[in-house]
């Protein structure tokens, strides 16, 4: 099937306005006759469910957490971008669009990104009206800051908890619709299968995580807003429950998976410290404004940092990138940390860490100033690591944070399965090969509040949707498949735990498909992953039974899907033999060792089609750049 992105014609600034006019409408009296399923209640899912409920659709909202308020959007710290230009520093919709296309290293669709920038301002208005307590100035107006190296101050924030406050805003809108009866909430439900009838998405199968019961729900359209797949790496900044199951199940039913190899590795996380470790904690990258990154100049120098004299320290970011120094973009900061550690100059007990040192800033500005700027972060660091960053340098290391890849969607956010729409981090659409800071929250809310409410109406108005319920054979068949799979997991009775397999997969992915990738390593991973998957299905142990709350079983199902998905991620990375965005291919670098993009060969979205028992097929959506000309990024 050829990929049709359905990007409207006309000048870029008119596309969305014109498109909205061309979309068909559903008569207000008919809206309540349409049922829409929304899976996931993060920024994208909660805002979509709330907005569709307000329009009058009959909405069923699902989440695996005990409350929709706990979706992982809650953990975003930094902020949300918008082109308000309140600071009068030269921002505009066009500039936000331009920066985002360039920041994505020219692997996103211009039309989508323009629409995102255009909508950004309405998001801020909406959130403020809901009562989101963004930071304000003494005059009572909203405060902005510069974030992630942007040259204008366009980031709105609520202390270090912007994601929490935006999510609680979307959650309150969702609960308002629950109160009004237009949204029905199903928490502690995990989506296990997508149901297609005549090739169209018509429902889902979920497992009730409390009773263990397999339940079916039918609808006229399905919306997935189920987040990213960073946990394929086992250790990441994602919440423990984040998983690929919903999108992977949809992929196996025909939805193409686009650019799975585009993952974002965040440079400032607390390093790995032991076997038992379950997750990595991100420290805001604002720390790089006043912290200096260094390692010892000599290999294997195990002296404590204070005993290493100035001339035996290598401030490698300042040395290599004199104009940006410690403020280079995320991908460069991460990659260079890996390079110095690979050279044997890493610090800490594992040798997989670099110093982030505030001694100079404390000397220059005083402890009070540093405390005012970063007090809460220093406290968080000390709480986790047990070391005081006012006295000794922090240790940091990169960690998997966000995934730009996801299910392929057209301009209407519909996947290659008719009726299946995908929002937020779960889709691939707007960040290209690298996401800029404070853009994830913007995209999730743009999709949910302001795009899907328009485009889903067009789908429902145009598509003949015969009445059906969960007695339809397609539901019975899908239920049976889910039951069989769950029983199979419970009956293996092997000798290794679920986490043990997950950990091994994660380390494989990190070693061969992490910050740096090369053909030999990727090919090795492509051999090892299927072998590990085979062992999983023979030797995993899952305790308990199906008809009860069983957290081991939940994890086993997710890891089983990661074991399939990981292979696709590696396959995508192998085929894309260029470096771009957060994706560094060692064979493709400039003479100075910087990332070398290859626009002639790879200026496309790579969308994979699942083949039962065979090799996935790659489909290409070629990208054209009419507004922003293709250039190589340089931060020297």
């Amino acid at each position, binding site marked *: 099937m050829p990929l049709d992105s359905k990007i409207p014609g006309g000048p870029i600034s008119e596309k969305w306005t014109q498109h909205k006019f061309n979309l068909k409408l559903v008569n207000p009296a008919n809206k309540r006759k349409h049922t829409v399923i929304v899976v996931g209640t993060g920024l994208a899912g909660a*805002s979509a469910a709330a907005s569709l409920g*307000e329009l009058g659709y009959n909405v069923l909202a699902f989440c695996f*957490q*005990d*409350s*929709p*308020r*706990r979706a*992982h959007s*809650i*953990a975003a710290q930094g902020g949300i971008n918008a082109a*308000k230009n309140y600071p009068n520093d030269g921002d505009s919709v066009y500039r936000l669009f331009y920066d985002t296309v360039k920041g994505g290293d020219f692997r996103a669709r211009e039309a989508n990104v323009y629409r995102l920038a255009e909508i950004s301002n309405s998001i801020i*208005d*909406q*959130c*403020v*009206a*809901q*009562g989101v*307590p*963004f930071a*304000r100035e*003494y005059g*009572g107006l*909203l405060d902005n800051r510069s974030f992630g190296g942007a040259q204008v101050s366009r980031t709105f924030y609520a*202390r270090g*908890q912007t994601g*929490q*406050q935006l999510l609680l805003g979307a*959650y*309150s*809108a969702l*609960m*308002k619709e*629950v*109160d009004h009866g237009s949204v029905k909430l199903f928490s502690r439900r995990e989506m296990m299968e997508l149901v297609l009838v005549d090739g169209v998405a018509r429902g889902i199968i979920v497992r009730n995580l409390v009773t263990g019961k397999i339940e079916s729900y039918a609808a006229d359209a399905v919306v997935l807003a189920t987040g990213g797949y960073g946990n394929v790496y086992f250790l990441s900044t994602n*919440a*423990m429950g984040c998983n690929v199951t919903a999108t992977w199940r949809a992929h196996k039913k025909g939805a193409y998976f686009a650019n799975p190899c585009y993952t974002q590795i965040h440079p400032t996380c607390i390093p790995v*410290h032991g076997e*038992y*470790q*379950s*997750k990595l*904690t*991100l420290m805001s990258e604002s720390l790089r404004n006043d912290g200096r990154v260094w390692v010892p100049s000599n290999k294997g120098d195990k002296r404590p940092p204070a005993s290493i004299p100035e001339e035996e320290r290598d401030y490698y970011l300042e040395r290599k990138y004199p104009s940006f120094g410690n403020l280079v973009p995320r991908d460069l900061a991460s990659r260079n940390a890996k390079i110095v550690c690979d050279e044997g100059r890493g610090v800490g007990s594992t040798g997989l860490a670099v110093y982030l040192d505030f001694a100079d800033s404390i000397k220059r500005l005083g402890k009070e100033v540093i405390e005012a700027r970063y007090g809460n972060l220093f406290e968080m660091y000390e*709480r*986790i*690591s*047990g070391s005081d960053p006012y006295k000794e340098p922090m240790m940091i290391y990169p960690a998997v944070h966000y995934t730009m890849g996801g299910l392929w969607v057209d301009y209407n956010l519909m996947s290659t399965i008719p009726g299946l729409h995908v929002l937020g981090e779960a889709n691939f659409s707007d960040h290209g090969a690298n996401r800029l800071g404070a853009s994830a929250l913007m995209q999730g809310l743009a999709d949910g*509040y302001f795009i899907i409410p328009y485009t889903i109406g067009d789908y429902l108005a145009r598509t003949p949707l015969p009445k059906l319920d969960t007695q339809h054979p397609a539901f019975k068949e899908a239920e049976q498949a889910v039951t069989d799979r769950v029983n199979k997991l419970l009956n293996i009775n092997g*000798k290794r*735990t679920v*986490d*043990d397999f997950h950990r091994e997969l994660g380390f494989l992915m990190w070693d061969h498909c992490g910050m740096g990738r090369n053909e030999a390593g990727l090919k090795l991973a492509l051999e090892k992953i299927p072998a590990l998957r085979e062992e999983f299905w023979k030797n995993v*142990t899952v*305790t308990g039974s199906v008809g*009860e*709350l069983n*957290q*081991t079983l939940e994890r086993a199902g997710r890891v089983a899907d990661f074991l399939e998905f990981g292979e696709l991620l590696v396959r995508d990375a192998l085929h894309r033999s260029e470096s771009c965005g957060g994706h560094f291919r060692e064979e493709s670098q400039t003479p100075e060792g910087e990332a070398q993009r290859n626009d002639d060969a790879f200026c496309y979205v790579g969308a994979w089609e699942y083949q039962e028992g065979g090799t996935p097929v790659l489909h290409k959506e070629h990208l054209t750049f009419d507004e922003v000309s293709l250039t190589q990024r340089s931060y020297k």
Partner: protein
Amino acid sequence: MKETLNLTLKVWRQKNANTPGKFETYEANNIDVHASFLEMLDVVNEGLALKGIDPISFDHDCREGICGACGAVVNGKPHGHLPKTTLCQLHMRHFKDNDVIVIEPFRSQGLPIVKDLMVDRSAFDRVIAAGGYVSVRTGSAQDANNLPVSKEDSDLAMDAAQCIGCAACVAACPNAAAMLFVSAKFSHLSLLPQGQVESKRRVKRMVYQMDKEGFGNCSNEYLCEAACPKGISVSNIARMNRAYFKSGV
């Protein structure tokens, strides 16, 4: 400092809401002092799984102290003994070798036990659905800067809005009151001009729902504030009570 600990855990095990529970004793050996409390439980659970024993169920997700999923009463204190700390952010270096640690779920009529350390907090969602929102439709908002809010009010609203909905306040309260949770949401919205239009209706409905869920009332013990991982102030309860009396109930 010793880098590992040997501990004895006394853990509340309860199969489901309808089966009585009891304490079981487990040994947790060679626990790294840098592990978090939940990572310590992970290690114990891995051991149980290999022996074919059902692992201890507990809610958890972000493990960064923000999602509000985790929480248990540890040696009598919700989220353990460290102030302003969720259970996932409590690290084992704050315990001693050979400690006996008693772990049980948050207990309250309004929070029925689901399994082991997991409780049903859906009452909190129902309280929010009873008015813990501003009635604004998507698309009907004015420009964000048309509505100035004093920095003081905005900061106070943010202090209250930080609540993570973990329910430690209920577990800490001798009356199993949810007043800190409910008043934090009420205060967040009533301190802002956006939230004032519906304020009277909101306070009546939220308090009604809170009572209906079986939570008790406040008798000024302030144990909720002491247990709150975000340090939410009891002054929010006073603010809600004032508004409630003025609402003409």
